[in-house]
């Protein structure tokens, strides 16, 4: 099984690639609609500004093949912005439209806490999770973001809290996404990626 990394120029593509290599998984970077249409499993990394990701998806004509692949059941993992892109909109760039696979907006975390939410935090499990299988419930994951899906009553299997609760892990049929960076989350992150590879296989 080969994972197609959607490469729109985000900073963390190389880290994700290295993390997959360490697990012995094959991966290829791609920003062509054809490759995404043929992918066996898709991974959308992303860090930085929401607008950069959404604009890149549209400018490179990746939105339609990506949505089509996800609807056909191709296993998908979104990381950080790759999670936020699944929602309808984001307060970070209100003029743009997300992939609209999940309901609601992505909002700014409250200014009552230090932002960005940067560093290692723990999760609150809302229901049983395939991505978190075998990972200790008190494990820490590395976060680096200021916006989040604070509407948590939908498809979040685990929440995190920084000023408010937000979706940390999403699982909905073949759609998987995490707000933290598994590629930067030491052993716990590696296990999560391995779980995704196993699910996708």
């Amino acid at each position, binding site marked *: 099984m080969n994972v197609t990394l959607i490469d729109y120029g985000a*900073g*963390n593509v*190389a*880290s994700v690639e*290295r*993390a997959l290599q*360490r697990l012995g998984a094959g991966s290829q970077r791609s920003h062509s609609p054809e490759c995404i249409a043929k992918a066996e499993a898709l991974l959308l990394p992303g*860090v*930085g*500004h929401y607008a950069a990701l959404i604009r890149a998806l549209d400018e490179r004509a990746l939105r339609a093949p990506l949505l089509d692949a996800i609807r056909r059941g191709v296993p998908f993992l979104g990381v950080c912005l790759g999670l936020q892109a699944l929602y309808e909109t984001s307060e970070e760039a209100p003029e743009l439209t997300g992939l609209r696979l999940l309901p609601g907006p992505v909002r700014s975390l409250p*200014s009552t806490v*230090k*932002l*960005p*939410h*940067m*560093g*290692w*935090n*723990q999760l*609150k499990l809302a229901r049983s999770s395939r991505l978190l299988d075998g990972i*200790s419930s008190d494990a*820490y994951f*590395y976060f*680096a*973001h*200021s916006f989040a899906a604070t509407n948590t009553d939908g498809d979040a299997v685990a929440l*995190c*809290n*920084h000023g408010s609760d937000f979706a940390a892990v999403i699982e909905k049929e073949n759609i998987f996404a995490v707000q933290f*960076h598994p*590629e*930067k*989350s*030491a*052993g716990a*992150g*590696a296990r999560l990626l391995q779980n995704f590879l196993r699910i996708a296989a």
Partner: protein
Amino acid sequence: MSLAHRIIPCLDTDGARVVKGVNFVALRDAGDPAVLAARYNADGADELVVLDIAASRDRRPTFLETIRRVAAELAIPLTAGGGIRTLDDARSVVRAGADKVTVNTAAVARPELISELSREFGAQAVVLAIDAKRVNDHWDVMVRGGRESANRDALAWALQGVELGAGEILLTSVDRDGTQLGFDTPLTVVISCAVTVPVIASGGAKLPEHFAQIFSDGAADAALAASIFHDNMQSIRELKRYLAGRNIEVRLPC
């Protein structure tokens, strides 16, 4: 459940090797950056910082190769800096594998650099390094490796840097750096409580108590040290166990 306090080892490099400054003059070799990075990654470091203290143009390719070698060893975030003057400098550092870039002297000279980096990479990837030295009732910003005053108030500069788009402050006390007398608590608490972004305290660490103090009294979000880790004076794993025993939230490695 809350954000863990981060322990961050720092590798000062002169191109391809980690060096240790003694009063800014005599530099001695402290090892291979990739070997140290692998050790800290395994020992429970929360992040790693690599700073090119030479920061000279002709050694840039060597430094980028060092970043690549270090990044290959890490499953934790990597911050790199030293001599980043332009957006292009930062791009090459990020392309080499850094998750965040740190700017210091060049941002003091041209503060818009912070906004340019923040627009391109996001605030979470822009670390403003401030070297601060006490002068009467305030702290001055120092540049060129802490040797020269920029005649600027450190608190005002921190606030301006955040306004311009910095997502984190790496705050080094020039007064404490190299003394091993402990972090600069008054400086750190003033800056950390004034800014809306995380603050990494740096300079003066030796004992586990110093870390406990900078997290509790200094309100630091993270603490950085170099030589005590390189010389095996302090293991990160044991330091974290000590902090956990003092009810300071840390990520204990398994």
